[in-house]
């Protein structure tokens, strides 16, 4: 499965990509919305993990743009802001499949990604 990780923290996305690769995912990463959209032009992804807060274009706007280009894509949001209760309610509002809190638990992330893809 191909996953695109987008977060302005390069250290975070690179490491996360490597960890997912170790778990058998084909993980790519981008550190900005522009870069992510560029990548999306040349290849297709099954699922995207987006940071909600990013400079210039935030995760929510990025998701809309990506969805326009690739309607079948699934989305998981990651945020450093808020408590778990908000994410459940918040996710439905932004139309994301899941909302996760930083710092991430890798097992939870993969579980949610699998779940989202099964839908």
């Amino acid at each position, binding site marked *: 499965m191909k996953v695109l990780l987008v977060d302005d923290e390069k*250290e975070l996305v690179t490491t996360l990509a490597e960890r997912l690769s170790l778990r058998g995912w084909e993980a790519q990463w981008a550190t900005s919305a522009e870069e992510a959209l560029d990548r999306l032009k040349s290849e297709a992804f099954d699922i995207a993990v987006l940071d909600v807060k990013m400079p210039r274009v935030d995760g929510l706007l990025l998701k809309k743009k990506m969805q326009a280009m690739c309607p079948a894509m699934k989305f998981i949001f990651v945020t450093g802001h808020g408590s778990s209760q908000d994410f459940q309610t918040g996710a439905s509002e932004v139309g994301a499949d899941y909302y996760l809190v930083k710092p991430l638990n890798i097992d939870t992330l993969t579980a949610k990604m699998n779940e989202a893809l099964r839908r």
Partner: protein
Amino acid sequence: MLKPAFWDHEDVAAGPHKHLFNFRRMWKSAVILTALVALAPLLFMAAIDYNVSQKAIEADIHYQTARLVSNTRRSISFFLSERKSALDFIDKDNAYTVLSEPLRLTALLDNLKKGFGGFTDLGVVDQNGLQHTYVGPYNLAGVNYSDQDWFQALKESGVHISEVFLGFRQQPHLVMAVKHDLPEGGSYVLRASIDTQKFNDLLREVEVSGQGDIFLVTREGVLQTPSRFFGNALDRLPLEVPAFAEKTQVTEMHLLAEPLVVGYAYIQETPFVLMAVKKKSALMKPWNATRRQLIAFLTVSISGIVLVVLGVSTFLVNQIFEADHKRVAALHKVEYANKMASLGRLSAGVAHEINNPLAIINEKAGLIKDLFQLQRTYAEDTKLVGLVDAILYSVERCGKITQRLLGFARHLESRTQMVDIVEVIHEVLGFLGKEAEYRSITLTVDAEPAIPVIESDRGRLQEIFLNLFNNAFAAMEDGGRLAIGVRRAEADFIAATVSDSGCGISESDLKRIFEPFFSTKTGKGGTGLGLSITYGLIQELGGSISVRSQLGKGTEFTVRLPVKSNLSGEKKIESATCG
């Protein structure tokens, strides 16, 4: 002791305006000022009244004394001049030769005694001082008066009234003599003795107020009539005779420190001075009664005024004190809310800043673990894996803290919906059911019937009660009791009480439990954020939380929530479902 609450109050927070909150000084100023304003005119009027009354009474005493002396002087003058005129008349009516006949003189003396009284004898003295004819009880015929002062003085004035004296007869009497010039040259004197008893009677009949005394005295101070206090006729008067004055005078003197009012009059053509002496203290008795009344009235008035001034000042300053207290409490509340808000912003900032590096540590450590385990090089090295696990565990703990901090400061939209609070409570208790069972903690929910469904945020309510229940569980030993009560509070509010049988909270801690990072469970996994988050959540819902606790007995939290939501500018979502 009756000490008002403000007496020892010191407003340490008042700063440069400290003087405005010195209630003791305020009270003192109020008491002094009002007492001054009320008492000064009263005392002034009383003093004036006192003086005026005293002066009036003294003037009245002087006037009465003057009148008494004046009237008595007239009586005595009249008495003497009447007798003098009688002698004058006899002189003129009878020729010298006729008067020289003892029989005729006896008849005249009899007539005088009958007509006027007071005459004891009558004699005719020739120009050489020889009394050649005498009628009366004593044998005084042939007595020569030529060397006596009165006889010498008579040559000048023609009439003489002597002082009272004993004379040959050893009886107090006075002599009245009238000189008559003969047409053929030469002269003779008609001389009469007058019994002073008549005088004495006259003076005795005079009523003198103020334990007074009235008597005749010579200019040299020898009593001429008996006096009540100063002895008999011819005794020495212990008082000084006042200097000559033509008219009746009243003066004040002292005898053995006793103040006296003395009225006197010099009786013309006689050596006599009429004196009336009164004791001032006796005269002032009615005034003393008035004065006592005045002083009693003054005492009662002053006591009344002082009591009212003290009472009113205390009451008013107390009111100000209480108002100030309320103001300070309100300020504290606002200050506290502000502090919480600032802390919220601060903690949100900190949490957010920390979250990203924390996430990186998490992923890096995770990757290390992955590498160890997936590549099997170090998979068997339990120590290394243990170390990485410890890092991951700590990151997870830090993550929980930052999440809770963010929750505390959350500015995300809240969602208002219709919530049955009893249902929420049961729901939350559901999470804890297993733990309660395991620790044999009794859970009871006692809800009044007909608790209204409230307009609130379900998620927040859950968090609020979860926090409170968690705290209660942490405070209790196994076998404790957690009782939840729900009732209607005052208009449009419901109140939920959560009481545990736990260890309780000390007085000093009680003030700080809603502050962030205040925890008694440090080292046992407490973040010190639970209650401050709860506090913030309840405030956001328009409610309030209060706490009562007793060390060793337990703690009771009361949450008051509005039935109608007053969350402003927030999106209301009718349904509780979320996708």
